[in-house]
């Protein structure tokens, strides 16, 4: 028999064989049990979704919604979040902070995690005044009075803020490229400070009548700049993901690929090759983006730009809005500082976003940062009996 000793004297099936088989079976069973009962951890994804949801519902095209700054603002109702899940020892937590940037700082770079230096109205005025006397990348700003120059700075700042253009200096650079800050500049098809093409008459609140339209674009510099900002932003939205400049006048530029604000500026000037009244190609249009962007860089230097390392230099516009398990706030801080990532700690995410808001006190559009801390410890559970 199999259990008998063989001719050679050894057994085929011994107690050890059963023992080894049993051991392997137990190891496999434990392995399967551990695998099947392990929690798939979706807490980080969930925290991210909650953060995005809050961000989307308190912002409208980069602007803080008006009601958000009221003390009576109910984030649960506004954002469609179930309040019941955020009460007591909840699995969730969020804190929204509304930070007013330091007046000497202009924006927050989420990429570099640093504050960027100013391009406020004061800096715009500084750059314009400098450009009245000095060329910046071959262009001057020929506004002929302090009053006019200062009003341009204000119009540019407002137009940039209202259209979500991150740096008003870019708008000024385009304005200097287009008209050299001369209100009455006219090229045959384009008019005023931002050289708005007359094909836009009838749009942007402009009269359809060509003569009246032209007159308004010259006599209303604020409107001219505002329309220029709108066109630039539309161009950004359309081309930000990138486009090849295949319609360029020169072969070298036909291979160029623009994206982001470079593409927006390219779109502002057009993606083709213009011709003058004699039918000659206007080759210098090919360099438009490079000229505007180089001037923009130089303007930043004039404004005293650079990168500051002082992200704490902020005050709060209003009190924090919080919800959920308050213990998580501390745990998120511990987890971040000590790199603790145990399952007992919630998964925490921090989102920062530069925003604009309307300050009803000063009646100005201002810049701010919203900071959203989100934590989730929502695991789900297996239940053995269900109804």
């Amino acid at each position, binding site marked *: 028999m*199999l259990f008998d000793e063989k001719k050679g004297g050894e057994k085929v099936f011994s107690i050890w064989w059963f023992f080894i088989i049993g051991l392997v079976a137990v190891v496999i069973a434990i392995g399967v049990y551990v695998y099947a009962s392990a929690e798939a951890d979706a807490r980080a994804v969930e925290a991210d979704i*909650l953060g995005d949801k809050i961000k989307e519902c308190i912002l409208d095209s980069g602007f803080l919604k008006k009601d958000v700054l009221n003390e009576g603002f109910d984030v649960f109702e506004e954002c469609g979040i179930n309040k019941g899940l955020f009460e007591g020892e909840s699995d969730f937590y969020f804190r929204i902070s509304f930070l007013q940037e330091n007046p000497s700082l202009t924006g927050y770079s989420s990429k570099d995690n640093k504050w960027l230096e100013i391009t406020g109205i004061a800096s715009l005025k500084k750059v314009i005044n400098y450009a009245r006397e000095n060329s910046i990348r071959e262009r001057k700003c020929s506004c002929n009075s302090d009053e006019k120059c200062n009003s341009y700075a204000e119009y540019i700042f407002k137009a940039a803020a209202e259209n979500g253009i991150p740096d008003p200096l870019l708008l000024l650079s385009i304005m200097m490229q287009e008209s050299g800050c001369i209100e009455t500049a006219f090229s045959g098809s384009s008019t005023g400070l931002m050289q708005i093409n007359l094909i836009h008459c009838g749009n942007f609140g402009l009269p359809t009548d060509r003569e009246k339209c032209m007159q308004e674009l010259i006599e209303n510099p604020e409107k001219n700049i505002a329309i220029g900002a709108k066109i630039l932003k539309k161009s950004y939205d359309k081309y930000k993901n990138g486009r090849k400049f295949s319609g360029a006048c020169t072969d070298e530029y036909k291979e160029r690929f623009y994206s982001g604000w470079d593409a927006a500026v390219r779109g502002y000037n057009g993606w083709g090759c213009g011709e003058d009244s004699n039918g000659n190609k206007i080759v210098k249009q090919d360099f438009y983006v490079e000229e505007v962007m180089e001037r923009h860089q130089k303007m930043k230097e004039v404004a005293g730009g650079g990168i500051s390392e002082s992200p704490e230099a902020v005050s709060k516009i209003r009190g924090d809005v919080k919800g959920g398990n308050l213990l998580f706030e501390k745990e998120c801080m511990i987890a971040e500082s000590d790199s603790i990532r145990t399952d007992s700690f919630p998964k925490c995410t921090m989102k920062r976003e530069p925003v604009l808001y309307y300050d009803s006190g000063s009646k100005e559009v201002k810049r701010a940062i919203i900071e959203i801390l989100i934590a989730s410890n929502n695991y789900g559970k297996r239940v053995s009996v269900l109804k």
Partner: protein
Amino acid sequence: MSFKEFYRRKKSEGLVHPTVIFVLLNLIVFSILGGFAAHASSGAAVYEQAYSKQIALMIDNAQPGMQIIFNFEKPIAIAEENNLKKERIIEIDNEKKEVVVRMSGKGGYISRFFSDYDVKYYFSKNNLVIFIGQ
């Protein structure tokens, strides 16, 4: 030694060579263990968790008015293996904000979503259609 000779020789000893049987039995035992491991790791428990979490996350990520169509072939197949009707696989509790997914009669997995939506759902062939209401 030819196979015939080998077989005759073993036959003469009263049994097929014990080593051959030993190897075959080992193969059978390990196949059964492997099959068990494969079956258990791709069984209802794992899928219940994965599907309930995915559905909860999708509801949270959705906007009111959206319709989500979810391929439910696999859960339906597993549930049928376990004699569970398709309609009993999923239950969404709008009061408790819970998604319950079960693919066997022995329980299920509950995941919670935080969005305060009125979620409706129905099956369309092998797809689960989830409608996100206000």
